[in-house]
């Protein structure tokens, strides 16, 4: 490879080349994240990112590529006359091309990304062969590249901070007179595993106490059975068929409707959101619209790792092979509490609207000590996943003993979350915020443990996936110790919050939970068609919609299947009454109501 007599590159030159390419690619990847982030939906659930990427990506790739360079430099001693700089550059450019092409995950298939990377590597070889003096020139520019990428990173951080200051400055001058509002979402918390819903295990002493201090809605339904559409309804007060967030090829909340955070900010509230769910409650889904202050990424080293493409591959594909299967950098209840209070310490004294998403009970079910093992069963299943391929077979669900252990670990996770919520409430009280803060506590969906042959969530609309807790505590205006059995939906929360804050509810036409009008309307839940899910899951075949009343739960599938359950006699939904002649009118009535509530989904359309 090398012209006769010429000595190959120095050891240090190769290391410098590695760092150079790492910094350059890291910057380009950060830029790619930034540009794609400007387009709603271009960065899907796993790919959210924010300003620190401009510092983290160059530093991370400089370190990784330096490691590759050290290996190549060591090998180069065996055959010193080769142009090892070309070898190293070709390897690293190929890797960079592959990583850059696979960043978004939907534009290029893995094979196409590999071919693109190889193509860039080939171009690099041809380019460098004709330029023997390129290496020393590149090495001389390294200090400039280091300075430049660091400067860009710092500017990106400063710009993000300036943007938040501008959003704060744009709030109305006069602070609102209403109370603070703390909206708490326990991601994946099904209602019937909580003490105050009659669960036979003591999973939730702190939440039970909270429920006793406020009004608790026994029959609350989430607007969907998975995170994004449910949060979108929680924030806009609209059903899924209106906001459409999370529907097929729409992994974001569109601009069509005012969000609760926007309405509160407009009223002068300082708004802040703290999300432990970086997948669907991250800024890439636009769910943070209206929040002046928003925290989702880079809160732990594990999360910083998955904000780069290479780090993501390491975290999601390599580390699980060594038994590390938790969500990388998962924020636990104490982390969210700490972030919230540290923000509160630094924020101006004016009423706040804060949103907290806790991910502690979400799978993989990994309760931390001291709660792990509290409810018995084998801990050997902790962290173990089943062969998910088996789920595609309609005849198979995970074995009962595994499901039981999952449920045990889920319940222990609730216990852990419950203790943390207790700490949150204690700290609020210590700060004198107990009486002037409305607390709304709910969940975005439930979780199945084998019911109807299903696991996880987002795959159907049975009660285990949509019956959620809903508690409101605000001693000046909300009755304490009340259990309200009216069927309600979490999309009624925006109007309720506005009402309690003494503000106009005109942006949120769905009635408040405390409105006296119309307590008979069935509560709508919807989940859209989803690709790439097991064929046994109802959502693999089309949308599913359901209506809940005090007595009935009616479920309609897009292809026409119907289910009807009598919740008073059959809360576990084991007997489908839809096909029985005596319920034909009931079924038809419910279908008519559904058509009225979601008319656009009953018009013929292609997909």
């Amino acid at each position, binding site marked *: 490879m090398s012209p006769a007599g010429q000595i190959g590159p120095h050891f240090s030159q190769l290391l410098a080349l590695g760092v150079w390419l790492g910094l350059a690619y890291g910057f380009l990847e950060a830029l790619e994240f930034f540009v794609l982030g400007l387009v709603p939906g271009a960065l899907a659930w796993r790919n959210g990112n924010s300003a620190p990427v401009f510092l983290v990506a160059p530093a991370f790739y400089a370190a990784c590529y330096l490691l590759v360079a050290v290996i190549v430099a060591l090998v180069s001693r065996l055959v010193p006359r080769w142009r090892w700089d070309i070898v190293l550059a070709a390897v690293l450019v190929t890797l960079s091309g592959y990583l850059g092409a696979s960043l978004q995950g939907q534009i290029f298939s893995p094979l*196409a990304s590999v071919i693109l990377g190889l193509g860039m590597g080939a171009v690099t070889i*041809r380019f460098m062969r004709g330029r023997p003096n390129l290496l020393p020139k590149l090495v001389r520019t390294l200090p400039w590249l280091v300075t430049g990428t660091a400067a860009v990173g710092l500017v990106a951080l400063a710009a993000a901070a300036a943007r938040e200051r501008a959003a704060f400055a744009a709030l109305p001058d006069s602070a609102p007179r209403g109370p603070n509002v703390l909206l708490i979402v326990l991601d994946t918390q099904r209602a019937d595993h909580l003490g105050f819903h009659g669960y036979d295990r003591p999973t939730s002493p702190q939440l039970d106490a909270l429920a006793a201090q406020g009004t608790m809605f026994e029959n609350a339904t989430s607007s969907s059975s998975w995170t994004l559409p449910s949060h979108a309804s929680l924030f806009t007060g609209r059903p899924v068929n209106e906001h459409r967030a999370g529907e097929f090829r729409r992994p974001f909340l569109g601009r069509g409707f005012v969000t609760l955070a926007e309405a509160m900010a407009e009223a002068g509230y300082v708004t802040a959101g703290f999300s432990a769910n970086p*997948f669907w409650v991250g800024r890439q889904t636009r769910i943070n619209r209206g929040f002046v202050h928003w925290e989702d990424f880079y809160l732990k080293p594990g999360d910083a790792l998955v904000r780069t493409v290479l780090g993501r591959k390491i975290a999601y594909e390599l580390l699980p092979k060594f038994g590390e299967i938790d969500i990388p950098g998962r924020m636990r209840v104490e982390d969210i509490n700490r972030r919230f209070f540290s923000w509160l310490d630094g924020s101006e004294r004016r009423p706040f609207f804060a949103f907290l998403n806790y991910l502690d009970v979400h799978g993989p079910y990994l309760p931390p000590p001291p709660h792990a093992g509290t409810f018995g069963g084998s801990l050997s299943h902790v962290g173990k996943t089943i062969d998910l391929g088996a789920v595609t077979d309609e005849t198979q669900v995970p074995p009962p003993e595994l499901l039981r252990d999952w449920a045990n670990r889920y319940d222990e996770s609730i216990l852990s979350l419950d203790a943390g919520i207790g700490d949150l409430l204690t700290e609020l009280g210590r700060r004198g915020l107990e009486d002037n803060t409305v607390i709304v506590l709910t969940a975005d969906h439930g979780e199945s443990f084998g019911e109807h042959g299903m696991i996880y969530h987002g795959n159907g609309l049975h009660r285990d996936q949509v019956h959620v807790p809903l508690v409101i505590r605000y001693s000046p205006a909300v009755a304490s110790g009340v259990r309200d059995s009216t069927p309600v939906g979490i999309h009624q929360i925006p109007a309720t919050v506005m009402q309690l804050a003494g503000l106009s509810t005109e942006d949120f036409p769905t009635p408040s939970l405390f409105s006296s009008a119309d307590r008979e309307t069935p509560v709508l839940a919807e989940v859209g068609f989803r690709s*790439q899910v097991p064929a046994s899951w109802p959502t693999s075949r089309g949308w599913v919609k359901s209506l809940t009343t005090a007595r009935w739960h009616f479920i309609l599938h897009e292809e026409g299947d119907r289910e009807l359950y009598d919740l008073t006699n059959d809360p576990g939904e084991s007997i489908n009454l839809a096909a029985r002649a005596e319920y034909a009118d009931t079924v038809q009535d419910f279908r008519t109501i559904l058509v009225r509530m979601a008319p656009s989904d009953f018009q013929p359309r292609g997909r």
Partner: protein
Amino acid sequence: MGLNLLNLGLFYVGPETLLPLTSVLGAIGGLLMIFWRQVSGAFRRVVGLFSRRR
């Protein structure tokens, strides 16, 4: 892709789909870069063939 740990183990099954056209275009672009000499050489020969006939 598909039913792997990433999609289901994290219990986040999103409405993700791959765009086949961009993948094909990307692969063609990559192959063009790899075999640039052969492709450009063949192109030149074809052009030469036509220009000599004229």
